């Protein structure tokens, strides 16, 4: 490729819209990006919080019923001992994957477009993991004993059973949660310092001052920060793959037709990224409008995310095809029946919905206009979220409804508590997110500033060049 400088228009034509519109100066960036945090409380925001609190109350009531009366308040039964609980768990964990992928893997691959959305995605990861982590605990028959899954030197000398995938889950999720928190918080520190510096009230200065751990922006600080951030990115990268792989083992190591599938790890990881990007999209499109982030979150970002969704959506579709192929190829009647049951059984509408949402919907992203249309993206991302939830439900609950011995077959119907834990957790997630948008800088200001400088220095199109080329 020629290194001859191109005009902005040329680049735009070749690469789509820029990752940063215009060349605002540092002060303008700080002001505009901190405006949601430091500005006055908006009515719309309060109304949204109020609405979400209603959902959260439903969630709390459902939790109280679950914990005090038992999980019999759910619709689970024998044979469907796992249903909404684990479906929700896997769904939330999957959603969490986008954050880590954007922050860590795209960082390592030096994808500049990640810059303005990474914190947003990380926060989403964090809240999604928090929601996800709840389910394995409350779904226990005796949740107060959840710590028995943790290997600790008990006087009873009884250890967890390491053959079971569930203790692996404990490690995977707790590691993932911890690293996500660290990664997110480390990235926040310079911006917390910015917020401290520009805050107008004393209280805020103190709070942000404490939160920013005395960041002064010295070269040494930056050096340590860079090392730490890269290290954490390196640590997080395998987690993107490992967490959902291990979650998929919960099913793959069993012998239930529909669960017992070796394709699960890659298929689950692809699905996780698929749903995670869809969730980022679902949240980003309204947030971008409401908080005026269009300058830093440009159609370019949206388009790139749409491309990721298209790619992972195709992987997921491949997974569906392969599951069916293997079921046929295995010549195992039970296996074949399990997949036939998806098409013809009592829950076939959920399966059709899943196919529509996960296979057909992302196909619109082959079209440039669709990738650039906020409306299409928003609707598609919601459909994908629904579809991915349906996928987990079909895998987990529908497989359980029809296993080996026909006499034990039974269907599953959710109760109001099941719905409360699903709708309520979405509300809680939303509430946390809305609070995050209000009180913390959702766009990494310093990174955008850095990006602006890089763009200024190297000119547009520079992100096509590797570091070596740049040095030359």
């Amino acid at each position: 490729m020629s290194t001859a400088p191109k005009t902005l228009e040329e680049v735009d034509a070749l690469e789509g819209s820029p990752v940063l519109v215009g060349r605002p100066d540092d002060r303008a960036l700080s002001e505009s990006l901190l405006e949601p945090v430091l500005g006055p409380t908006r009515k719309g925001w309060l109304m949204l919080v109020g609405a979400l609190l209603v959902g959260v109350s439903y969630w709390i009531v459902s939790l109280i019923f679950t914990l005090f009366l038992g999980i019999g308040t759910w619709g689970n039964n024998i044979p469907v001992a796992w249903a909404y609980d684990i479906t929700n768990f896997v769904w939330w964990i999957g959603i969490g994957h986008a954050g880590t992928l954007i922050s860590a893997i795209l960082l390592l691959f030096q994808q500049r477009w990640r810059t303005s959305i990474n914190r947003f995605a990380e926060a989403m990861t964090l809240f999604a993991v928090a929601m996800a982590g709840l389910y394995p605990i409350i779904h226990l028959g005796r949740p107060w004993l959840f710590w028995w899954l943790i290997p600790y030197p008990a006087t009873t000398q009884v250890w967890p059973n390491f053959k079971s995938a569930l203790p692996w889950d404990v490690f995977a999720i707790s590691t993932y949660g911890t690293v996500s928190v660290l990664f997110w918080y480390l990235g926040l520190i310079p911006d917390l310092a910015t917020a401290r510096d520009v805050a107008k009230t004393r209280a805020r200065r103190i709070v942000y001052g404490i939160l920013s751990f005395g960041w002064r922006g010295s070269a040494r600080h930056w050096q340590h920060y860079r090392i730490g951030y890269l290290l954490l990115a390196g640590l997080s990268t395998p987690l993107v793959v490992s967490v959902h792989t291990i979650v998929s083992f919960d099913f793959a190591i069993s012998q239930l037709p529909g669960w017992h599938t070796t394709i699960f790890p890659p298929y689950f990881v692809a699905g996780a990224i698929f749903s995670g990007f869809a969730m980022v999209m679902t949240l980003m499109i309204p947030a971008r409008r409401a908080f005026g982030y269009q300058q830093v979150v440009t159609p370019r970002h949206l388009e790139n995310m749409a491309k990721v969704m298209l790619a992972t959506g195709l992987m997921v579709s491949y997974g569906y095809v392969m599951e069916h192929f293997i079921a046929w190829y295995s010549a195992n009647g039970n296996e074949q029946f399990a997949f036939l049951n998806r098409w013809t059984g009592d829950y076939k509408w959920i399966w059709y919905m899943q196919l529509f949402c996960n296979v057909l919907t992302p196909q619109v992203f082959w079209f440039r206009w669709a990738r650039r249309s906020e409306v299409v993206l928003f609707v598609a991302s919601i459909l994908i979220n629904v579809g991915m939830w349906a996928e987990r439900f079909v895998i987990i609950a529908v497989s359980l409804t029809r296993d080996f011995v026909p006499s034990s077959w039974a269907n599953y119907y959710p109760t109001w508590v099941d719905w409360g834990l699903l709708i309520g957790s979405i509300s809680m997630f939303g509430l946390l997110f809305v609070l995050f948008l209000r009180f913390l800088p959702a766009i990494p200001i310093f990174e955008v500033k850095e990006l602006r400088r890089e763009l200024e220095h190297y000119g547009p199109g520079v992100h096509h060049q590797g570091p070596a080329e740049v040095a030359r």
Partner: protein
Amino acid sequence: MPPLGLPIYGQTSGSLEARRWRTLEERERGPQDPPPGEFPENAQEAPGGFTRRSFLQVLGASAALAGLEACQPPREKLIPYVRPPEAVTPSVPSAYATATSDRGYALGLVVTSWEGRPTKVEGNPDHPASLGAADAVRQALVLDLYDPRRLAGFRRGRRDLSWTTALAELSALARGHEKDQGARLRFLVEPTSSPTLADLRRRILERFPRARFDAWSALGDREAREGARIAFGRPLEAVLALADADVVLSLESDFLAVVGDHLRHARVFAARREPGKLNRLYVAEAGYTVTGGSADHRFRMRSQEVLPFARAVAAELAKAQGLEKLAPLGAAAGADRARLAAAVAKDLSRARGRSLVVAGAGQPAAVHALAAAMNDALGNAGKTVAYREPAVFDPSGEGTGLSALAREIAAGGVDTLVVTAWNPLYTAPADVPLRTLLAKVKSSIVLAYRDDETVRAATFRLARAHLLESWGDLRARDGRATVIQPLISPLKESATEVDLLAAFVGMGDRGTYRIVKDGWRARLGFGPPPPPTAGSAAAGNPVDSNKATPPDPFERAWEEALAAGLVKEARPASPVVTATVDAGRVAQALGAARPEPAGLEARFVLDYGVEDGRGYENAWLQELPDPVTKLTWENAAMLSPQTAKRLGIASGDRIELSRGGRSVAAPALVVPGHADDSVTLPLGYGQKVHGAVGGGAGFDAYALRTSDALAFGSGLQVTRTGDRGELAITQGHFGMAGRAIALALDAEELPKAKAELDEHRGAEATILGQVDYSGQDYRWGMAIDLSRCIGCAACTLACQAENNIPVVGKKQVIRSREMHWLRVDRYFEGGAEDPKSVSQPLACVHCEMAPCEYVCPVNATVHSDEGLNEMVYNRCVGTRYCSNNCPYKVRRFNWFDWHGTLEPIVKMHWNPDVTVRARGVMEKCTYCIQRIERARIGARVAGRKIGPDEVVPACAQACPAEAIVFGNLNDPASKVSHLHADERRYDLLHELGTRPRTAYLVRVRNPNPELA
């Protein structure tokens, strides 16, 4: 724990009493007089001379006579362990023989008791009606005992009475009837064979010659006895000898599960279901029954078509098989039925003297008479069927008496009606207006266990003591008697039927125990007890006395009778008689039979769980899946798929059933194999007066049942109401989806099926290391013979009672959360119209490579050295992963705290050897590990190994068909080892490599090649 309110028995005087206290409250208040009626009999007359020494004597004696301790109480009292007797080890249960009434006859039981607390009802192996087995209904008796809502005390109008006052008032009432010789005194009782009750009835009739006893039960054996009267001129009891019957034709008789000595029938029938010994069973019936499910050929026909079919068989026997005697009885049928009849007749005739025709209890007398005639002509009488004088009294009056009684009451001819039959106001035919009539009776005295419609209408009600609290006696069908002995003193103030009837002859204050015992003293020909050597107090209280008494020879006989559960009598009470069939009368009865009307037929049958309704408040029976439909907690109008289609009805639709101007709304249930144009209506549900358990569930089929159609009748109208409801059915899928689950083969296929069966047994290739159990002393295993299993679900209930399995209620059953560790799966083979059926008991199969174990994150389910798949409740956190990975889905989860809300008295039925599981833990079949451990303790103490067949789990013990066998697979002598090596053995889901310890034996059918 709050006080249970258990009365503690003892005497009320003497120095001992001063030190004794019942409750902490009493201890603080100081001893008080017992409230009136605290003790059922005579307690107010406190005997003197009861000393510590005599007390210990009694305790020592009772302890020494293992198995007899309850039989020799001081006076009528049962002695609790106020001071622990030295020879009794707490935590070691004892067992007592007793009996319950099954259609008036004795069914011998052995009841397990823990320090005076009965917990488990089992069959008495020595009793001819049980042979060690017990059906679900009998086993559920123990739950009734601890029903917190049972009646207590005696009440006349609005006055609560003590037992003494009640007795005084009963005596006064009786005296009032003396002047007209009891012309206005009537008794409504259940048919019974009790010699004591027979004596009392005789004495009552001596005192009141114009009084009358009318027997009534909802679905008794009246038609059978009437049929015998037609055939033989007198009501005789047909006792089947199925062991010798090669070919059996059942004319809608459910002889394996309901009628006759069904437990014995099942035992000997099952013994003939092994290859080489196969008999052949033809069943002609409308609704699918347990017997129909065991048939080689099941002919689906409406109940009213059974008689023409039987006549067609008779005609074929006469025409083609040369039994000329039957010619006047036969009548040819349509071409379809004629082909079947010809084949059946040929088969019956081929096995002359080794065949059997059985008529069902619901079939009219003419069918019974015809069956008797066919058995006679085939030379079966005396060989496969024996006729005995019935031991129940007024054997034929049963049923007809009720209408007569109603007429008398309507005419104002009855002043006092004593009701000991179960809830006749509910069970009476719809055209007998007993409900309105009872108000016309001045004194209606009702003895009942629970509140019901009859109790509410009564002017004088008496709480009935539970069977396990009562003395009594009953005879088996072969005439042998059993003394009913109590296991516990009455938990609530109550009386027995003997007490009540005795009150009418001035013996009410003697108490059941003495009446029964003295009766047997006389019946066995012993003289009166020798007088004590000295002391006036001792004379009134011979056993309690510390004065020496000379030995009473009767005591030994009495104790032996109690211990064995059978009385040794010199002369059998119901001898086998030879009876000749009067073909003329049979022909006359057949000729008088009504022609077959068209239209929908209504059939009234006993429910397999609640029977005629008396099990309605028993949660175990309510939750026990029906052996055929797997329906729980309610009844439903059952009809065939084709009829349902014609009427536009689906399972769960609410339909309006009307017949003769009466109507009732019921849920519909489509049952494969049901006869077309016939609707089966199980009785016993929809009770208006009910407790929390029954809860008014189901519909009242009695509302449509009239005197002329007690078992079936035509003229049923069915309309859809448009409503739907959900039925609590535990098995939603009756097909096997083409999988090898419950295997059944025809006898001739079996030798060729080895290759096919080999795919379902033997070692499966694996890369996993396998545990070698050959070095262990014990390798526990089970074998379930599907060929023997009749699907009666006795095992399910035995497991429930043994293992403290909770009931969960209808809503939870609909949510598929029933807790039965052992379920009996029923599969239909063939088309929905006329399928064959296989029943398959399925509990944890204790896989050697258990899929549940490796997925448990906390090691809560692990393997024992002897190969048991163990569940550690304490360790379980409730991830339920084990259940998800269990291919047999036999694990059960405590979704709620099922036990927390139980009243303390209900908790008394728990087996102390078995943990009561908390909320949030998984549970499943343990192979009755508590029984294994108990056997191990016994063996260790004796310094030996556990015998090969020594451990019998609850399911195997209850199974009437001996289909379930448990034992040590490492002992080649054990029964289970032989069965595991049987040619019919296969492993369920063998291809998964789970290596289950429970093996199944293929069901073998023996179809008639002519009907292929």
